[in-house]
């Protein structure tokens, strides 16, 4: 479904991604982890067309999307959330969800937009907040709003950038449950997250980036025991430096 080949991106002299080959197929939640600055968000930004790769390419459902503008990529059925929640602060919660649907194809919009929005508001627990200005929501609700908004487009591929960032354990749990029960069924999700419990709970497959390169891939258990991964996260373990 999604495939990157030799994906490389420079920012000036800094190499943010160094030839990443990553491919995923089928439904489910795929984990994308790595230390801060390892290129995870850059990968999302390239997939969604915000940046062009310096080298390599991205294919989505068999089509090369690495040279398309963001609106063309998004139209193919990709939605995302952001590390720092981005909301339309001066719109109501419901208008935020409506906004997400404005660019859908006409047929898809007419079919079930209102019903879908109401359902998304309910499952994310925002129904009582629907007419509140979005800027008045606390952070955990803003993150849930982002998720509801992404789902309002019924994307095929959903990219979640630290969906539980800054949340308490209980809120994290709730977010994990939402991803598991609402977001994941019937689509492919990629989750960037630093909370390993959450990754272990949600993902069958985890990819680890470090300094822009893929250093490991496998089940959460395998990956988290991998010495290379441990070294990347907590530094060199034993032996001469």
């Amino acid at each position: 479904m999604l495939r990157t080949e030799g994906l490389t991106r420079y920012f000036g002299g800094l190499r943010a991604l160094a030839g990443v080959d990553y491919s995923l197929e089928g439904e489910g939640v795929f984990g994308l982890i790595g230390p801060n600055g390892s290129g995870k968000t850059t990968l999302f930004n390239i997939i969604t067309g915000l940046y062009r790769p310096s080298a390599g390419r991205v294919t989505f459902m068999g089509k090369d999307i690495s040279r398309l503008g963001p609106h063309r990529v998004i139209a193919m059925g990709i939605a995302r959330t952001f590390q720092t929640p981005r909301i339309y602060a001066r719109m109501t919660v419901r208008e935020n969800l409506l906004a997400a649907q404005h660019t859908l194809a006409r047929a898809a919009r007419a079919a079930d937009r209102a019903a879908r929005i109401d359902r998304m508001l309910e499952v994310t627990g925002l129904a009582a907040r629907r007419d509140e200005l979005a800027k008045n929501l606390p952070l955990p609700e803003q993150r849930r709003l982002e998720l509801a908004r992404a789902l309002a487009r019924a994307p095929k591929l959903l990219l979640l950038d630290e969906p539980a960032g800054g949340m308490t354990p209980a809120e994290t749990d709730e977010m994990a449950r939402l991803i598991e029960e609402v977001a994941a069924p019937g689509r492919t999700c990629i989750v960037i997250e630093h909370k390993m419990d959450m990754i272990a709970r949600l993902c069958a497959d985890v990819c680890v980036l470090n300094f822009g390169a893929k250093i490991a891939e496998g089940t959460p258990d395998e990956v988290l025991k991998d010495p290379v991964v441990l070294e990347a996260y907590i530094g060199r373990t034993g032996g001469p430096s």
Partner: protein
Amino acid sequence: MDEYTIQVLSNIGMFSFIALSAYLLLMTGEISFGQQAFFAIGAYASGIATSMWGWGLGLGILWGALVAAAAAFLLAWPTLRLRGLYFAIGTLAFAEMVRLVFEIFRYQVEIDGELVGPDGSDGFRGVRYTFENDISNFQYMLLIYVLLAAVLVFFFLMGRSRLGAIFRMLGEDELLAEMQGVNRTFYKVLATVLAGFIAGIGGALYVHLNTYVEPKIFNVMLGVHSLAYGLIGGLGTSLGPLLGVAIDIGLLESIRIFTGYRMIVFGGLVAVLLIVRPRGLLDEEVVHWLKYRMWRPFARPVRRQPDATPREVRDAQD
């Protein structure tokens, strides 16, 4: 109605067009200091059409608006990559260029033994359509308000449509809008062109009421005012800029309570409002309050939303 009232109301109407033009761009998140350029282009183009080419008034106004829209299209491309302050400076530079072009623009023909047409910095005299066709100031005022009403209907319909929503999305968070599939380039250009068209109507109306224009009318102060109207009146609704015009021209200028100090009071008002109410009197919060808190109890019974906790509706899966 006495002539003075008619004159004041006509001015309020005409400057509402340029205020709405600046407001449309503010909606999409861009601050333009250059809308006076399209006001000027609309004035010159329609004045030329009626006084030199013998066109009717309606066609002349349409022509002025279209030429202004075309100029806006040309401006949109080079400024597309500019954001925030840089866009503001770009539009300001463009407007000054347009003004300087009109300072040297000469295009005159002899009509009834008299030279008619733009004469550089001496301005463009003899746009006498309203005199020659016996249109009274009162009738002309009605024309202004009919056209203004049409533009307001357009804004109202746009506000309820997908187009208006997309403009607001771009205005709030351009990157987020783009990440939701909005074609930024297309809609930014469209907003600039529409804003040019609306300012062009205002300019076309202005030249026929005053029978003459000169380049220095279209200086930066006009652009600053047109921006300030929206910022005073409020950015939450298209009635905001109109309120701004009414406050400035209707109260400060016409009632003459602040004779001689008008600009000081106006400038002070802008400064205070930018601090106290950065998005104007009728901002989004007021509009939201009116919509959800005030109208609702009268409109229809409020349907209580069930305070559904996620766990209770876990079966309502996607």
